[in-house]
């Protein structure tokens, strides 16, 4: 298995499966084809949820199932502990959709996963998917069509809309990764450049970015440094957002020239990325290249 590419043999557990979101999304993921082999829950009186066997902790779940991937659907203040538990149990990739993880917890989580060589996707991510194969998290089925376009996004909804319009236009995705909207995240765009460069199904790459931080700038540098061999497209939200206000995502906060739209666009364009002002223009640009 080459993470973060997953398939129907990838064994996945869900931490927090007995919560409202855990019950709903374990069913939806399983229906989509994800190989959910276990759930972690403190609930003692239940044996399984949606036909998925329950375990008291990650260690027991991993031991019994051989799972290598975990999706953690626990509260924001419980997330760091859940990640520690997963790493200690030998999980190799963790997806954390929960919104609102404190940033200093995320700093600790990132150091923890990095030192253990574990891939972390999140926080505040809708998850990731290999279209028509398996998904980890919330990505809506209507937006998932299999195809040649690699997709990375900070935003959930904007990527749903983009994926949906692309699918309607006939363009499908290869590996879709929601890197998440938090300022300190696990995998950043730039970390994934080598993965998309060598992924055979991926013929082009789309990033959906937004104001705040410097993920887009670092991505642009990584493209150049690694001579990324495939066409790259970008859509950046927040061109007209006010300074000093976090626009829904904790990461989407600009102050002074920090995190602003203009610097991101300039950096991407200098690396040969096609940057679009509207969804329609992006869809047509991508379609013209790939169809």
């Amino acid at each position: 298995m080459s993470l973060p590419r997953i398939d129907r043999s990838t064994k996945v557990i869900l931490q927090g499966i007995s919560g409202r979101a855990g019950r709903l999304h374990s069913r939806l993921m399983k229906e989509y084809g994800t190989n959910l082999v276990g759930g972690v829950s403190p609930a003692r009186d239940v044996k399984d949820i949606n036909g998925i066997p329950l375990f008291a902790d990650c260690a027991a779940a991993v031991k019994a199932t051989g799972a290598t991937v975990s999706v953690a659907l626990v509260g924001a203040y419980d997330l760091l502990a859940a990640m520690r538990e997963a790493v200690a149990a030998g999980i190799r990739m963790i997806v954390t959709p929960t919104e609102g993880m404190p940033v200093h917890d995320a700093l600790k989580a990132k150091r923890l996963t990095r030192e253990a060589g574990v891939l972390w996707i999140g926080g505040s991510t809708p998850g990731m998917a290999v279209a028509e194969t398996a998904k980890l998290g919330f990505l809506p089925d209507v937006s998932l069509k299999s195809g040649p376009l690699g997709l990375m996004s900070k935003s959930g909804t904007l990527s749903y809309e983009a994926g949906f319009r692309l699918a309607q236009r006939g363009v499908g995705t290869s590996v879709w990764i929601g890197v998440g909207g938090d300022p300190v995240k696990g995998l950043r765009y730039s970390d994934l450049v080598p993965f998309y460069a060598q992924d055979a199904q991926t013929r082009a790459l789309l990033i959906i970015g937004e104001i705040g931080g410097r993920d887009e700038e670092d991505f642009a540098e990584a493209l150049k440094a690694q001579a990324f061999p495939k066409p790259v497209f970008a859509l950046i939200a927040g061109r007209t957002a006010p300074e000093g206000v976090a626009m829904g995502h904790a990461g989407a906060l600009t102050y002074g020239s920090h995190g602003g739209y203009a610097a991101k666009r300039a950096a991407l364009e200098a690396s040969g990325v096609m940057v679009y002002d509207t969804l329609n223009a992006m869809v047509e640009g991508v379609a013209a290249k790939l169809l």
Partner: protein
Amino acid sequence: MYLLEHDAKQLLARHNIPAPQGCLITQPAEVTALPAGPWVVKGQITAGGRGKAGLIKKADNAADVVARAKDIIGKTAKGRTVNAVRVEQQVHDASEAYIAMMLDPAAAGVRIIMAAQGGMEIESLPRDALQTASAAPDVAALTATAEKLAASFPGAAGKALAEAGRAIAAAFLAEEALLIEINPLFVKADGSWLAGDAKFVTDDSALPRQPAQRALLADVCSAYVETTLKDAHGCDYVVVDPGGEIALLTTGAGLSMMLIDEMRGAGLKPYNFLDIRTGGLRGETKRLVNVLNWMREGRNVKVLLINIFAGITELGEFSRLLVSALKAVPEFRVPVVARLVGNGMESARAVLAEAGITLHNDLDAALAEVRRHLQTANPGDAT
């Protein structure tokens, strides 16, 4: 959240980071107790560039202070209205240095930047005047790195930067800060120092466990409207243009931002940003009713555009909640344009049709309907 300078200095004082003596004034007519003068009168907004915006003025006597305060309060800059000024002692016989600590998302650490020159934007300082390094986010590592950087500056500046570095390291971690920037850091000949200005960005996600920060939400200046709303109501709402014509009922931060960018690019005037979080409605109209009431404050709002891309939410159920919420706020009487995509479109179409609302699948078609309503409302307007 991006703190007002005054609030930042109050919080920093708890961590032994001193500032020139100062006080906050919201009613210039009621100025009584001032620290010894002369003073600088500084308009308080949650954005930088205040000097250029004319929000920072010197004053030599008490009458001057009142006049300057009256002049500055009520001004708007960067879309924010000034509700208060900080009146602060001027500092003389001091040099200006620079110190900042900020998140380093790539290294999962904290970046420290120091310079013996300050008082201007960090971007304008010569590169070789800066010392910078990244450290692990724990007190020992951060303090050691700050001391090492400070050691490269001779004399009073080096002493002040080392001491300020230790204090800021402790504050940064205890307050779970995203950024603390002291620029200028006033340095006296004996190495004693004061924070001349303070830029302090905190983590909204940590608010529930940071009571001193949360207390600022009840602040007299009401500078943190967005964070206050999110704290109380669980959704993100920002008025992006008080004179805007189109109220937006939208979900998803990225999609809502993009919609605003695209509308502005097409010459339309959105009033607000909103991430309603349909998944958090839990079958109740309360959040929708609140939002509709906030939108009534938009004096030029002429149409309401609903744009929901629902991955999970059942749109029939959402439409029923929406129609009930609209009925509950009869004072908000503007045409409603709806564009929904997701599960349960047929039942959504039926529910909305009964309320006289056309459901669009296509965003461009919805925007065309928005334009028709604006033309009806502004017959002389070419938009």
